């Protein structure tokens, strides 16, 4: 803590209304006594204007209309998901693998999810060269960072269940999108229930 200079303490004294009234009266008196059209200031001595210290220089910044980072789209090559160019369309109708849903803040595999996972496992056993990626998702409520971890756990719970049904985990990659890839942007129980899910994407067959 720096010592507050003396004049600051003086300055921080409050102005009370009585002082103000006195000041008003004094000022009116002073002003009425200068009716001689000389337009003199109330007090002849203005405060000194010292020369400021040498200038601090502000360096230029990039023009504001472009992103600061020079990122090329090439950086996203090879990515199956997550980049604008290569992101898969939502191909629910053609995807032979069923998505599963979760309860709020849970990664428990529900009975309904078990049925879907059994069907998915059967498909993967028939198509033994199929590699998949499980995407874990959350609804928008709660911490983004916690939801990233929860999505991860949901994907892993699904992966573990498939593994227990005999699907080699080597064929199963997983990723979490947290709350950032919702199927519905609505804010109601139905939308949230739809968004709490794991999806199964075929990477290669």
């Amino acid at each position, binding site marked *: *803590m*720096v010592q507050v200079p003396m*004049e*600051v303490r*003086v*300055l*921080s004294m*409050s*102005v009370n*209304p009585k*002082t103000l009234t006195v*000041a*008003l009266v004094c*000022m009116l008196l002073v*002003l009425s006594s200068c009716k001689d059209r000389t337009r003199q*200031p*109330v*007090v002849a001595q*203005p*405060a000194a*204007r*010292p020369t*400021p*210290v040498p*200038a*601090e*220089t*502000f*360096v230029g*910044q*990039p023009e504001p209309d472009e*992103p*600061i*980072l*020079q*990122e090329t789209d090439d*950086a*996203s090559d*090879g*990515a199956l*998901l*997550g*980049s*604008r160019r290569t*992101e898969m369309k939502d191909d629910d109708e053609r995807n032979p693998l069923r998505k599963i849903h979760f309860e709020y*803040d849970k990664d428990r595999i529900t009975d309904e999810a078990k049925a879907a996972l059994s069907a998915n496992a059967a498909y993967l056993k028939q198509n033994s060269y199929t590699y998949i990626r499980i995407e874990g998702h959350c609804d928008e*409520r*709660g*911490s*983004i*960072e*916690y939801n*990233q*971890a*929860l999505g*991860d*756990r949901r994907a*892993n719970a699904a992966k573990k269940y498939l593994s227990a049904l005999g699907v080699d985990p080597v064929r199963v990659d997983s990723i979490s999108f*947290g709350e*950032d890839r919702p199927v519905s942007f609505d804010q109601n129980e139905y939308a949230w229930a739809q968004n709490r899910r794991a999806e199964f994407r075929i990477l290669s067959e």
Partner: protein
Amino acid sequence: MKKIVFASIAMLALSASGRAQVFDRPGIDIVIRGEEGRRLSVGLPHFYSPVVNAETKAVQEEIYDAFYQDLRLARAFKLVNLVDYSTEINSGYQKGSGGPNLEGWYLAGLETLVTGEVRFEGREIVLNCHLYDAKQKTYIIGKSYRGRKHAIRNMVHRFSDEMVFRFTGDKGIASSKIAFVQRSDRAKEIYIADYDGKNVRQLTGNGSLNLSPDLAPDGNQVAYVSYRDGRSELYTANIAARTTKKIGSLPGTNAAPAWSPDGRLIAFANSHEGNTDIYTIRPDGTGLRRLTSHPAIDTSPSWSPTGRAIAFTSDRSGGPQIYTMNSDGSNVRRLTFSGKYNASPDWAPKGDKIAFVRRVRGTFELFVVSAVDHTVVQQLTWNQGDNEDPSWSPDGQYILFGSNRFGHPELFIISANRDFELKLFRKAGNYSNPHWGS
């Protein structure tokens, strides 16, 4: 006669200013609740410009607006709008005879006065700022700044911080920066801005998901998470050099980076061992160290200001709760016991408090808990949408956070004592995940 009128008006206004801010400019989204503490009055006219045209007028407005925002948020000051008296106050500059006549202003109840000169030199602007003591009729401090036109607000911020330091002994926040995420369509990009929401600049532009920005203590780097290469990985961006670098590249989900206060380490969450735990790594990608080893989720690390401890979110007790540990991973302690969902801790810069988010009857509210006594808990928001991702100002007076209280995600600033709230951006947008740097 003119003088009498202006002095009387100023005086009436000043005598009323003990109760409320009477010089508010219209249209600023600020809500003042309750009594203000003692503030030093600062008169502010337009700065003097030897040339008068549309460009210089715009710069004069910008200078006024920047001072207005700075001095309001500095809390030590009460700004008095003297724009209408600018010619009068600055006549000394015009005549070359010196600074303003302070006597009338002192009699009108004013304690200090800021004015100065602004002029263009080629493509640059020179700004001379002067602070006067109206009572002692003395000059207190002066600074001269030179830079490009777009840096004018930063020059004012620098002088505002000088004033704060001069009068309170504390480092001001006017020159601090923020980082945040803006969503457009399916992409989320990282942006940086001045603390007052001005000078917004887009940092990433890869069209993917970019999350959890964290400004380094030196202010020149941002750690963040990006899915640009298909999965969630850690990056650091150097703002001045306009470069970005991938850090580490551990398999699994990488999330929630946080610079240590000395800038030597980045704490983050990673799931490559099967579930999410907290690690530290050096910014050059070496020295990976695991801090938590628990089958539950451990994420959202936030360093104590000394760097000796880390607060984090863990669901090891069933649902997410706030914990603290030493920065080597030892001495884990639970800090929140009420509520089934507590997350997003942010350790206050003075070390005494931790802000976090709690789910209360279906909505998310900001809370602050004492770092030393977990029974001392304060609620900051009530029933105004979901409030998320608190981040303290460097002086510990304010919290920046995201809220959907007006229907879509936006950023707000609230004072820790709840007497002040401000919506950061007027421009519509989908803003989230803010971080207030130093």
